[in-house]
């Protein structure tokens, strides 16, 4: 009796072992699916943008002074959108990096233990607020109360030779401007840069801090001359990650940038970004070429963010234990 039950057990166990073949196959398959998915996205964008790529070649992304984006003529040049993405993301980065570094330093070095957890929370919450909510708040609160006054203050720069073209006014009363998009982006990329930089700083070995302190450095000197240089590549990674987020951010930017192809180079005028022109026009694209041109913008956007993220990842992952 006992022997038959153990043999039954053994048989059952043996049967169950067969499940492992299936299990490994499933694991392997899932891993392959995720990898293939990324390749598939790239492939689809490449294929779908073929008509536009063939028709316009490099003209499509060339920085023409007078770019044409005309669905009626089926002629598309994307420079205004590319410029819009670059200028808004750059301004956002220039303003966000010092703030984010300050936050990172405070969170990793200065904050007392009781304050650390709630502040970390707040940084995470800032990242969690949906993009459309930023957009809604942007339209009705941030643009009129913050962006318009700042824009008005910048208008006089429009007559300065050299940099004047970037500040040509007047600012629209609604506040829908590239500047508005850039300032909303500051808030949105702040948590990304701050959180990764914080992790980078925390990963600096204790011995580095102690050595600096032992040499008589003040706390600030320790941070500025030891910790930041030690973590510089990781912090650069954080900054690039922030730039990638700013370039790819869609809804909030679409809602505050005004979506217009004019505006020259001025940040005080409405414009487009690559993401916002897709969001704004794709569902109503009139022709196959129009769809294809928007797909090509998607391709450019994908390529840029892929390169930025791959570079940032290489900088951050290789040098910190924690991943952001």
């Amino acid at each position, binding site marked *: 009796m006992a022997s038959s039950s153990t043999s039954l057990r053994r048989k059952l166990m043996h049967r169950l072992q067969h499940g492992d073949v299936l*299990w490994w196959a499933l694991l392997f398959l*899932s891993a392959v699916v995720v990898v293939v998915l990324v390749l598939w996205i790239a492939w*689809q*964008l490449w294929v*779908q943008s073929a008509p536009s790529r063939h028709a316009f070649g490099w003209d499509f992304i060339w920085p023409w002074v007078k770019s044409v984006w005309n669905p009626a003529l089926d002629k598309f040049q994307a420079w205004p959108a590319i410029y819009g993405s670059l200028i808004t993301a750059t301004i956002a980065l220039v303003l966000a990096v010092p703030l984010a570094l300050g936050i990172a330093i405070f969170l990793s070095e200065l904050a007392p233990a009781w304050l650390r957890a709630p502040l970390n929370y707040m940084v995470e919450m800032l990242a969690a607020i949906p993009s*459309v*909510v930023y957009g809604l*708040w942007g339209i009705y609160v941030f643009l009129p109360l913050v962006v318009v006054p700042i824009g008005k203050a910048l208008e006089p720069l429009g007559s300065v030779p050299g940099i004047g073209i970037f500040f040509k006014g007047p600012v629209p009363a609604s506040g829908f401007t590239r500047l508005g998009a850039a300032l909303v982006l500051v808030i949105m990329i702040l948590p990304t840069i701050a959180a990764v930089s914080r992790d980078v700083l925390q990963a600096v070995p204790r011995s580095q801090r102690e050595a600096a302190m032992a040499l008589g450095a003040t706390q600030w000197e320790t941070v500025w001359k030891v910790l930041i240089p030690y973590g510089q590549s990781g912090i650069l990674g954080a900054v690039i990650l922030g730039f990638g987020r700013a370039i790819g951010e869609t809804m909030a930017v679409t809602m505050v940038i005004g979506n217009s192809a004019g505006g020259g180079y001025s940040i005080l005028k409405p414009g487009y970004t690559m993401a916002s022109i897709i969001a704004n026009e794709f569902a109503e694209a009139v022709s196959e070429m129009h769809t294809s041109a928007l797909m090509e913008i998607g391709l450019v956007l994908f390529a840029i963010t892929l390169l930025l993220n791959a570079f940032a990842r290489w900088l951050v992952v290789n040098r910190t234990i924690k991943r952001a």
Partner: protein
Amino acid sequence: MQSIYEHVDLQNNYRRRKIVNKIMLTLTGLTVALAVVPLVWITVYVLLQGGKYLNLDFFIHLPAPMGMTGGGVLNAIEGSAVMVLLASVIAIPLALLGAFYLLAKPSTALAHALRFSTDMLAGTPSIVIGLFGYAVIVAVQKHFSAFAGGVVLAIIMLPVVLRSAEEMLKLVPREMREGALAMGAPEWLAALKVVLPAAAEGIITGIMLGIARAVGETAPLLFTALGNDNYEIGKIISDGLRYHQSIGKIIGTIFAQPADALPLTLWKYAQQPYQERVHQAWAVAFVLMLFVLGLNIVARAWMAHRRRKLFG
């Protein structure tokens, strides 16, 4: 012998360094205060403004015709629920199996490729994922659908869940899996009955973060789910029952139609000339914020609690 410090007024220099230290440290504190301002401003404003326009109709009625007062966003609530459900059904198993692969074979070429792809997917702009969904589903089926919306949301959720699941599985002591294997359990049973339960809490928090992310996404739905003022699951089901359709057919109908979602409604209503619609946009923002921030807070509090339990 002359000191090399002779020309330096040490006392003064030290004072200067201390002042610089004070100033800079204060400045870092100020940056934190500056970052808290928009968070509090947005949260409080949305909760106050949105709270004013919330009522029961908002949750149980379809949108009123353009320009009319009243009506609600039932279509968006149901659409969000259906699409996030589909996204979870696709993304969670895939993410967990992927994470188990990383746990079992952490340094194969495929594992490196998987980690890399996951990070790239997480960094891909969501609008690009929307284009992909349009190309492979909408353009092929020749119609917008809740199905397409659910699939793109799954792609958004996938990296969030996979990353956190990998981290949580790594926290489970190796000995637990080895113990199970030593007792003769096959690999899959050890994974599902021993390792998975041990990491369950952490994985669930990761799933919650993934859902929070998917619920708030708008861009990928713009040209996959498109929007649908008349999306009403109750009506689809009752119609289906009336015509004696099979359950499969009814579920098919639910996913085959274009659907609305809360963030999509918010986007459409935000810039309309009708005050009523703008008010409803604020109310939608209220619901979204409450849901998304609520999920985040619960998930992170739970995670922190778990960490304390594990590491003291």
